[in-house]
């Protein structure tokens, strides 16, 4: 898929009487990593959810711009890969079964070997891949969640606290993933982790 950029202008979000985001603007450019930083509760996840099309903003606009012009909202998900703490995979399926399912949903005919390699690159060894995700540690689950986000090589990648639950090796794997996607995708990372903040080419700071 060709490069896609995500523009957001004056995005605000209220939940009842609580304002979580107040007029945030910016662009997710292809070939760039945008870091969204801020203390807990500052709206990092909310912003990413709005950019992903999962939440509607109270005010403001989000536009996905592809090679052929603006992408309709209903089709954003085709160009998007996302991993977040509130996005789990199916615990009653194995890691491989999960990935095969998501690949089929996205209309991809991906070879078993390709998915196995993807998991290995993220630090999930072959012998674990056929066990049910419900038996995994949180670090292993996180690896599967990341695999689910990237298996379709999306031009827009959103990672919400990607290194959470991961050890040093896991963090390295995520760093490798971001480095691999940086040249050809628009990447957004919401994080408090200074190591992850360091990945950013551009940065948005959210306040409480």
């Amino acid at each position, binding site marked *: 898929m060709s490069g896609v950029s995500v523009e957001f202008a004056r995005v605000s979000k209220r939940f009842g009487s609580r304002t979580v985001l107040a007029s945030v603007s910016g662009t997710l450019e292809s070939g760039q990593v945008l870091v969204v930083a801020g203390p807990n509760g500052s709206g990092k996840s909310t912003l990413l959810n709005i950019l992903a099309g999962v939440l*509607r903003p109270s005010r403001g606009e989000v536009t996905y711009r592809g090679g052929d012009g603006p992408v309709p909202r209903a089709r954003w*998900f085709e160009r998007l890969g996302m991993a977040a703490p*509130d996005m789990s995979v*199916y615990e*009653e399926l194995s890691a491989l079964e999960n990935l095969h399912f998501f690949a089929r949903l996205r*209309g*991809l005919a991906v070879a078993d070997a390709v998915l196995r390699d993807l998991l290995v690159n993220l630090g999930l060894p072959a012998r674990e891949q056929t066990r049910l995700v419900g038996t995994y540690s949180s670090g292993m689950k996180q690896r599967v969640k990341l695999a689910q986000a990237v298996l379709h090589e999306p031009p827009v990648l959103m990672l919400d606290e990607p290194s959470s639950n991961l050890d040093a090796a896991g963090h390295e794997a995520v760093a490798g993933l971001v480095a691999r996607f940086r040249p050809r995708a628009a990447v957004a990372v919401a994080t408090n982790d200074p190591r992850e903040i360091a990945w950013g080419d551009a940065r948005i700071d959210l306040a409480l």
Partner: protein
Amino acid sequence: MRASTLLSESLAVLAKELKSELRSRVALNAVGLFGLTTLIAVAYQIGPYQIQEQDRPHLLSALLWVILFFAATSGLSRVFVKEEDAHTAKTLRLAARPVAVLAGKFLFNLLLLAALYTFIVPLYCALMGYSVKGVPSLALVLAAGAIALSATSTIVAAIIARASGATTLFAILSVPLVLPLLVMLIQGTRAAAASAALAAVLPALRGIVSLGGATLIVSVYLFPVVWHD
């Protein structure tokens, strides 16, 4: 761009549901046990001999559907509630077209109902001494009923999963919508039991099929709105 069709995506959702269900068997157990328990309670207290001959057609057809509907309600909302509970809903939302999700889950609920009917109906007929003259007619009524009931339950399940997800809410929302369907199903069952002619069940069948069809069509429009914020 997209190598797959809506059909293959829907079947992928269905396959995943079946795989998950066969491994955990939560819905199957709930539905089966509720059905069996109610049936045994009814059969034990009433059985084939306690109902007067002239009351048998009315009561036996109505009791059957009370048991079937009660059992079904315990399991039909799971398809969506478990996604929200397990936090897989958002992942699914970002991976699939809404109509594929709806179709896959509708088909799953349909198969769940088919399994329930296959299990309970023959058992009911045996335990309650319910003789059915038009077995193919009854099968048609059951099939049409399953489609209509699955259609209504799936969209209601989608709605309540985005609310509190409580089974009581599912029951409260389903009852007014399912009542007309139940009336037609009971009448159709009665007609099938009384006569082997297909014509006997046609009025009820027409009503059931059109209600099911209308619900399915409206669901296709409503589901994306309910599924996404």
